[in-house]
């Protein structure tokens, strides 16, 4: 082959350096997160049955379809299949009760994509976590549906239709232990996911494994989940029901949506601070608000709101916490 390459179709391409790029792409990242969530989602389907499956599928389809439609209407590039809308749909489904009527789930997904994501400009520009906006909107719209849970058998053969945190809030800690037949039984149930709750939040072990996969793949920083979970642990231990240092941190760290929230939702880079230091502040704040709502609030669980509330502080955090610029005093 000669060096004669000036025919029109072989014109050289000119752009600005660098010319080599790392291999990761946005789409690859999104699908990896989906992959990391898959085990816990599958567990949810097995444990809660067909309604859970229907909700997951409906939520994902609604999210992707909504993204496609909005991008068509806005006449921007179609990126509906890059995995991010899929992820929003999946996460939303994993944070709601398996008994949710699917049409409500679909509305939640559409709210997440259309209102929370595309009203602010689409991928990367939203301020609030779309899945959580969807969940919070469903919560205020149909609170009864959102707090109607599956009926499951507890380890002591009692039938319950309440989540552990729900039992704690309305009936107290001793009732909770009684329902599960002791502390270690309770921990085991929480760890393995044999308990009531949202579709994807129950199985602590699978969620943590998925999270570690993301840490290993350098998709998320370990700081956010660790700091957030630790903050909740410490605060719930210190401010226990019978005075200082009487709480049950192990329970609180595994209960509710904390694990999935800390590993998969507080880490949503779009809505979290961009610097590591900022992320730590974010995680501490989210942990504090979660504990506050669990211990003092009107709801049994506060992960969703704590993340949303910290989302609104993110721009301020980013404004204040910046890396030191080389060669400047600060």
């Amino acid at each position, binding site marked *: 082959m000669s060096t004669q390459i000036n025919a029109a179709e072989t014109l050289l391409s000119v752009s600005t350096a660098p010319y080599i790029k790392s291999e990761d792409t946005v789409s690859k990242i999104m699908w990896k997160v989906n992959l990391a969530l898959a085990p816990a989602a599958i567990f949810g389907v097995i444990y809660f049955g067909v309604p859970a499956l229907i909700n997951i599928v409906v939520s994902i389809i609604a999210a992707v379809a909504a993204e496609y439609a909005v991008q068509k209407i806005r006449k921007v590039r179609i990126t509906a299949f890059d995995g991010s809308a899929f992820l929003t749909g999946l996460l939303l489904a994993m944070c709601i009760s398996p008994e949710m009527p699917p049409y409500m789930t679909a509305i939640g997904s559409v709210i997440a994509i259309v209102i929370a994501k595309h009203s602010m400009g689409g991928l990367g520009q939203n301020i609030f976590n779309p899945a959580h906006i969807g969940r919070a909107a469903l919560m205020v719209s149909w*609170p*009864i549906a959102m*707090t109607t849970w599956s009926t499951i058998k507890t380890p002591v053969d009692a039938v319950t239709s309440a989540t552990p945190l729900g039992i704690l809030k*309305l009936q107290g800690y001793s009732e909770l232990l009684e329902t599960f037949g002791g502390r270690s039984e309770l921990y085991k149930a929480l760890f393995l996911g044999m308990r009531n709750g949202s579709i994807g939040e129950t199985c602590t072990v699978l969620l943590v494994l998925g999270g570690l996969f993301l840490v290993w793949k350098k998709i998320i920083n370990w700081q956010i989940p660790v700091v957030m979970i630790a903050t909740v642990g410490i605060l719930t231990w210190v401010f226990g029901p019978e005075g200082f240092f009487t709480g049950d941190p192990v329970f609180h760290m595994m209960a509710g949506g904390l694990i999935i929230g800390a590993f998969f939702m507080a880490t949503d880079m779009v809505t979290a601070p961009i610097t590591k230091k900022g992320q730590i502040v974010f995680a501490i704040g989210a942990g504090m608000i979660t504990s506050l709502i669990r211990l003092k609030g*009107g709801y049994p669980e506060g992960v969703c709101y704590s993340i949303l509330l910290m989302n609104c502080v993110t721009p301020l955090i980013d404004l204040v916490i910046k890396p030191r610029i080389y060669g400047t005093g600060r």
Partner: protein
Amino acid sequence: MSETHDTHAAHVEKEYSILQIAMNLTIACLVSGIILATTYFITHPIAVEKAKMLEEQAMKDLVAEADTFNAVDGQEGWFSAEKGGSIIAYIVPSESKGYGGTIKIMVAVSTDGKVIDYNILSMNETPGLGDSAAKDFFRDRIKGKASDDLIVVKDPSNKENVQALTGATITSRAVTDGVRAAVDEVTEFTGGK
């Protein structure tokens, strides 16, 4: 702006003394006072009348059989519902803390210590959720119960006690507690007599 300006001259600044300016406003206020005073004297009696009528009506709704209602001496806000001269019930105010803040209720308690009915005066519960506590179907769950039965349960088969509103246990409890407190007060009041 596309407004029509007819008095540009008014904008030309002139010098005024302090007193002149102050008097200008004072006169405006005086005129306002006159208008308001007149209105007040016309509407106030009507308003008082209306308020009283409403109150009567509300009490009438609570205790339908009664023909007269009288304030009870020494118990602020209490009324006795009388039929043919004899007291058949007491209407007492009560309050408790609900989901969104204080809930104020008026409770009609029969002289034998049972709830006849109640009426929510003010509350800040979630519309469509907590605020169903004012609806007939929930009032029916409380009517006729004595103090000991006024306990909220979440078990649909239990008819003895008060079945909670779906999704609004806190409100249900608050209202029930408020009613029970009223019943207890009445029992104490009548028992003490």
